């Protein structure tokens, strides 16, 4: 009789345990769902805020330009200088807002990945860049570059950001060299895309945080023009494409940024 009683008790305990387990699972699911909702709301909030900010900015820039066009002759040098500063500040804020928009878009949108030929894409990017900024850098590409699985528009955004970053952080007086290469990381089954430059480099203690939003490290001729969001965009996009980013840098000598992405399917 004792044995049977024990067995009944044990069965009851097991049932109780199972019930608790199920409740816990349900609560975890509920919380996860709530969190996901909150993130979606936050992202769409940041999208609409950035979007609404651009309207007044267009007006500030537009009317400052009109003042310059129509009334410049009635202002002295100081007055014109102030107007220029309004214009430049508005442009800068506009770039900031656009970058926040891009970041929030990349965080929200689905990024379907297909095979992308870097052998085609990288020379195209470099050509575009040269048209905008001839003579700014010597760019070398190690063909053949390995193809990757990626969302092409996002990858273009990433590589463009890395390229313009290299230009922004060139060492004063040193002709800038940028070098694109790829390599298969066998252990991880990822393709590493390297963008190496001979610019100002990044101190070891700064290397982790440069991928966070607004963490532009100020050094050398450091970019008053940058918004500090470019690398955060790169990181978000690459991670959403199933990859990772990083940097290896020798302060004062240059940086080598890498983007690891899944290789193209054979």
């Amino acid at each position, binding site marked *: 009789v004792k044995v049977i009683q024990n067995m009944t008790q044990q069965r009851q305990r097991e049932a109780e345990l199972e019930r608790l387990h199920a409740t816990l699972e349900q609560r975890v699911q509920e919380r996860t769902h709530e969190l996901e909702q909150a993130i979606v709301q936050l992202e769409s909030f940041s999208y609409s805020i950035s*979007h609404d900010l*651009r*309207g*007044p*900015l*267009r*007006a500030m*820039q*537009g*009317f400052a*330009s*009109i003042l310059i*066009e129509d009334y410049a002759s009635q202002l002295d040098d100081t007055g014109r200088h102030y107007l220029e500063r309004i214009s430049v500040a508005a*442009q800068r804020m*506009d770039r900031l807002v656009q970058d926040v928009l891009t970041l929030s878009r990349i965080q929200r*949108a689905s990024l379907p990945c297909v095979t992308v030929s870097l052998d085609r894409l990288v020379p195209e990017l470099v050509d575009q860049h040269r048209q905008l900024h001839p003579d700014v850098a010597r760019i070398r590409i190690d063909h053949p570059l390995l193809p990757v699985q990626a969302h092409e528009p996002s990858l273009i955004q990433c590589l463009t950001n890395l390229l313009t970053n290299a230009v922004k952080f060139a060492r004063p007086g040193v002709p800038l060299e940028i070098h694109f290469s790829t390599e298969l990381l066998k252990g991880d089954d990822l393709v590493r895309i390297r963008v190496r430059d001979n610019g100002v480099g990044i101190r070891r203690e700064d290397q982790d945080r440069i991928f966070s939003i607004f963490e532009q490290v100020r050094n050398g001729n450091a970019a008053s023009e940058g918004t500090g969001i470019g690398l955060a965009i790169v990181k978000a996009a690459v991670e959403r494409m199933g990859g990772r980013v990083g940097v290896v840098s020798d302060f004062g000598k240059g940086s080598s940024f890498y983007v690891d992405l899944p290789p193209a399917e054979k």
Partner: protein
Amino acid sequence: MTEEPILLVEDNPDDLALMMRALKRAQVANPVHTVTTGGDAIRYLKGEGQFADRKRFPLPYLILLDLKLPEVPGLEVLQWIRTNLDFAVVVVVLSSSAEAQDVITAAKRHCNSYLVKPDSLQELYDLAALIKAYWIDRNQWIREPQRGRIRAVG
């Protein structure tokens, strides 16, 4: 061709002023009528209420349509236009966003073109000059009598 009217639908007074300046600078000689809500856009096109006088408020050949509008959103105005007006009416969306969803919806509702409001005044001048060169100078107009008026008021 210059007498063919343009309807500019824009609720933001700053954007409205900047666009009017850009059109003037691009030497657009057509009369430009403006309304500031989606509801007014539809009432104008219907010739309803304060817009009843067709002489003063003629049917436009070209509509420049903002999307974020009070009362009736731009995409709904577009749908109304395509349901009720002759297809010869050219609708150029002029939006502050290139959100994929908006671009897709506007295309499905048959806008003729989707343009994003540029950031700088110079770019806006360039855009207005492009609109004039393409839609006003080069595109073949169907004049109002042949264009027909409202197909069916819905």
